[in-house]
């Protein structure tokens, strides 16, 4: 079944352990700049984890001119061999998820860690969850959207 990450800014404290866990899992070192999940601290006490939402029809894949982005079993996949580092995917993504790895100089993106996301494992506050992309998860998204609009809509 297709799964996605689900973020809850109300629980996020801005500790960024997800970023450390992500870079450690993928690169064997601690480096927020290499993490595929980012915590945005917007001021006013708002901290928001952001990463790939695994779109059904990924905009990044549509704009990629080198064929580096594909979709398999509902997971958006980036191929560093094919990527040219053009950054179009970063511009196209609605949440800005892909980033250029500072070492590889190629676009990287959340791969959900083969079903056991390191960010979820290490978040002490339950702010990042790994959930089935079904109706119940959509309800959660709606709840988050309402809370965000209350803050950002002011």
């Amino acid at each position, binding site marked *: 079944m297709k799964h996605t990450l689900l973020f809850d800014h109300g629980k996020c404290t801005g500790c960024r352990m997800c970023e450390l866990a992500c870079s450690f899992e993928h690169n064997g070192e601690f*480096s*927020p700049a290499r993490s595929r999940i980012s915590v945005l601290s917007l001021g006013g006490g708002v901290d928001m984890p952001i990463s790939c939402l695994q779109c059904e029809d990924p905009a990044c894949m549509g704009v990629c001119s080198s064929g580096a982005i594909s979709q398999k079993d509902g997971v958006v996949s980036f191929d560093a061999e094919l990527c040219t580092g053009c950054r179009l995917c970063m511009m196209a993504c609605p949440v800005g998820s892909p980033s250029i790895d500072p070492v590889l100089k190629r676009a990287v993106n959340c791969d959900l860690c083969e079903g056991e996301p390191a960010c979820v494992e290490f978040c002490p506050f339950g702010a990042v969850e790994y959930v089935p992309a079904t109706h119940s998860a959509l309800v959660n998204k709606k709840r988050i959207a309402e809370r965000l609009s209350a803050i950002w809509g002011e």
Partner: protein
Amino acid sequence: MDGWTGRLLRVDLSTGSIAKEDVPKKILEDYIGGSGLGAKIFHDEVSPDVDPLSPENKLLIMTGPLTGTLAPTGGRYMVITKSPLTGIWLETNSGGQWGAELKFAGYDGIIIEGRSEKPVYLEIFDGEVTLKGASSVWGKTLGETTAVLKEAVKDDDAKVLAIGPAGEEGVLTACVVNELGRAAGRGGSGAVMGSKNLKAIVVRGTGSVTVAHPKEFKESVVKSLAMMRENPVTGTALYAYGTPVLVNIINTNGIFPTRNFSTGVFEGAENISGEQMAATILKKKTACFACPIACGRYCSVKAEFEVEGEGPEYESIWAFGAQCGVDNLPAIAKANYLCNEYGIDTISMGNTIGCAMEAYERGLLKDTGGLVLNFGNTEAMLEAVELTGKNEGIGKMLALGSKRLAESVGEPGLSMSVKGLELPAYDPRGVKGQGLGYATSNRGGCHVQAYMISPEILGLPEQLDRLAIEGKPAFVKMLQDFVCMVNALGMCEFTGFALGADEYAALLSHAVGREYTVDQFMEAGERLFNLKRMMNVAMGVSREDDTLPERLLTTPMPEGPVAGHLPETEKMIDEYYQLRGWNPDGVPADEKLSELGLLK
């Protein structure tokens, strides 16, 4: 290199030269990092009789080998210098994000020396390090400074550490603040930075920190995180109510210093408690880098005192609360906010205002410029903070700290300080080990070099009889050595509620790839504590300084659960010196120094 980057930045503000230096591995292994490595460098490079506010004093900002890793709370940096407030060793540390960012930029620390002719700030973008003119932010508060410098660097992930107007003005209790609400608070490091005409350090790092044994390191992290989750303090209480959870606990135990330590019971405690904060002004719980505790409180006050930002935490609530006879939480939040904006240590500020209030009420302090400094006068308290931040009017006197203030009104005994550093929020008459901790802390009146509240009140790692003195010297010594290591690693002392030396030694060993047994770990801590003591002895500290304010030593607690008690500190000193291997004057004996590899 693993754990460490092995590299330091040396910035000479007099000449404008910026150098990158490698640190020998043996030095790193023996002195670890943070305030440990800082102590080694400071000891080797700076004369003990240096004037703290002269170009010859140095300001070191250090991270540890676990800063920037997934080790719980691995995000801290330590500021090391000779304190202008106390004239002795100063280490003071802070969390937030700045320390980790410096590590990711590739540095274990920065050595700042000399004095710039004009105000400057340092911008670090990985390997590119530049000094830039700070005229646009000189005189500005932390909020304004941080916003302007972040805009200038054009990178949202850059982190800003800066001083406020207080540091520029040479306020002796001025601190260094990062990301608006996190402070290396104690001892006046902000005044040292200001004396060097250095306004800020902006840092952005896109590099990485590696560990020697990734698999074992991860296992140690997972184990430590589980222990912290299951611990009642780190897993529950600090997240639920932040450090202000202590207000009711400490007050109920009768050791919540009230009105300049005249009693240990504050009638207004409930109104300024963590529970009250959660029910009224709390907006969000926040964490420092890599912290699973999240004791930070982001608060918002809309009514009488409009204010929004980090804090206040427990010590600040006490300083502007019970110490000043104030039970108005929004007013305390405002005072805390003003300190963060001007860059002033909240503990020393509130404690000093409380001292001034007592002097005023007793008719000793007359020339206040019209300020009615009675206990409980919130308006006067807030005005006093503003004036101190600007170094104007009565603020000029408050800016010197409580010791100089009390001396100037002819009643030195009114200063609730040790070695010139204002005491924090626990009355030692009812926690006798904590009293010894205050008396023997290397930086003066401070609770965190040996947080005896943990065993004496909270029962962690074991419950000690808080009114007993038996066994306390050994416990204080152990905690001091242990804290030296926590502050060397780059972690937060709050992890110590849940973790033991085993866990820290494992995290360190797997990070740097050299095994530290628990004995070696504690011995390294003892080495660091003694090194700092050696510097203090050279700076003039002796047995007569290892004491408490006379009021606390001679006036029994007047009321509450510990009524009638005294700290009995003098009864513990000889045993403490013996355990330390120091002579009866408090000087480390050659035998001990030789054992620790500190004898030249």
